[in-house]
């Protein structure tokens, strides 16, 4: 396992999210086994690994949706349990039924439920926060749209807007680019980069290996167990990709992915 510290922009001295020995199982099947991770503050981190490697399970265990067998999770050195309000979670788009009778602004306002409480009234202030979040993902003009009529990319943007409304410190995203159009992918990455510039920490389960270098600074590679973790340049290597994906990845393909590109990343 490679763990890189020390760089100029990232300050891993106090990791945004620290995971130690996290183990989760579904019945007899171990989903993740003793995973450690130190996701740095104010950076964009990717979690990569093959299907069934436990990437989504790891996120769900962190936010407490999935019961854990063993392990600890800390947010800025405090136990996650009493600090969930610092996390905004963006679930997989396909995890909900989009036929649900509601509209776009209503879904975004769900991000404010913790703030307004069970019976507190949604005032003009909350509506303008929600509208502002929709504007940031480029969906402001669709605020009244029935959610069943949105395209996949628009659904993903609404989910991101809902997370933005929470005004959290850490953003956990489960495959945010899965099944979205190119324009949405661009829009989402722009929002995430602007979050990073405001010292927010982004951690995303990602499965498009071709864009890992362009989008992220830090990577956790898992396949049930830890394979490697660290800054992209040092960690996203051919060797680590081979150990993560086993024989599933063509050698030439892996070399191509892990080679640092000359063109500057936007």
């Amino acid at each position: 396992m490679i763990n890189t510290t020390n760089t100029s922009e990232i300050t891993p001295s106090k990791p945004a999210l620290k995971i130690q020995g996290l183990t989760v199982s579904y019945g007899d099947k171990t989903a993740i086994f003793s995973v450690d991770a130190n996701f740095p503050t104010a950076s964009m981190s990717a979690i990569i690994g093959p299907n069934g490697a436990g990437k989504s399970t790891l996120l769900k265990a962190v936010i407490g949706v999935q019961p854990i067998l063993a392990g600890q999770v800390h947010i800025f050195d405090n136990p996650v349990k009493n600090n969930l309000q610092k996390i905004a979670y963006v679930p997989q788009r396909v995890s909900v039924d989009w036929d649900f009778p509601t509209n776009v602004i209503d879904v975004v306002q769900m991000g404010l439920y913790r703030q307004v409480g069970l019976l507190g009234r949604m005032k003009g202030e909350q509506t303008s926060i929600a509208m502002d979040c929709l504007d940031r993902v480029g969906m402001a003009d669709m605020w009244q749209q029935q959610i069943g009529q949105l395209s996949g990319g628009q659904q993903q943007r609404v989910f991101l807007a809902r997370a933005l409304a929470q005004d959290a410190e850490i953003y956990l995203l489960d495959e945010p680019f899965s099944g979205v159009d190119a324009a949405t992918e661009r829009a989402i990455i722009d929002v995430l980069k602007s979050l990073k510039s405001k010292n927010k920490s982004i951690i995303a389960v990602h499965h498009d290996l071709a864009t890992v270098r362009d989008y992220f600074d830090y990577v956790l590679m898992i396949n049930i167990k830890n394979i490697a973790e660290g800054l992209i340049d040092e960690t996203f290597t051919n060797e680590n990709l081979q150990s993560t994906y086993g024989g599933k990845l063509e050698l030439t393909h892996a070399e191509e992915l892990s080679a640092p590109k000359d063109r500057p990343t936007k």
Partner: protein
Amino acid sequence: MINEFIQFSLTPILIGILAGISCAVPGNFLILKRQALIGDAISHVVLPGIVVAFIFTGVISTMPMLLGAAGAALVAVILIEIIKRLGKIEPGAAMGVVFTGMFALGVLILEQTDTSKVHLDVEHALMGNLESLIWLKAQGWQSLFDLDVLKTLPDELFRIIFVCGFILSLTVIFWRWLKIVTFDEEYARTIGIHSSIINFSLVIITAIAAVAAFESVGSIIVIAMFICPPAAARLMTNKLGIQVIWSIVFAILAAIFGYIIAGYGPLWFGSENSVSAAGMIAVVSGIILLLTCMYGPCRESVGQKKD
């Protein structure tokens, strides 16, 4: 005419309306969670519990029946688990066996009880007893303002008023939580909402509604009250709040028209006997659902992916 209506039709219609609302409101969340058949399962499983409670207490009263129903539900969960483990069959089959088995057991126990002096028998348990919930002391509209006469209203009416009020207030108070847990359960947990408590409460509320409606519409037809009004309501609107209001409107319409058609309809066609009110309420609910399927303004958005 008016006098006869108040004596024989007013209370059954009111009870039908309130039972319909009590079932339709939780039904909205069940159908959106794609768990509509939980209502069916619960209404079947609770029958032996209700019957056993009735045998022990000798009276039809909500609290013992609820306890009996809760006990029956617990037994059902344990049985399903045992059958799944020992029989190694799929969960759906295990549930099917347990629900129908317990329902049949309820019917058998009921048949063995002495029905000569009590007013619970198989027919009423299955088909409801709406027609007998009458208010004989009433003498015209002024009886509605006469406390002594009001006291002779059937107890069932007061029970269903209480249950309906309870369900409606919980729905209003926990509206936001219900909505988000129904839409996106995992996300709900990340913003500090205890999804499992909400889900469990929804099942309990469904059981309370099933037990309360049992007296009026019986345990077979109650499933129509859980599913038809909310399903029809979904086709009328794309907003959850308005959907719940529509489901209440449809439950009211079904109760009123169902009771009147059952009581007077056959007479219009020259027949001398009326038909089962509970059965007719379910049929009217079904017709409302059919009409909304054909003409409801929002039927296109349901079940169709747009890109």
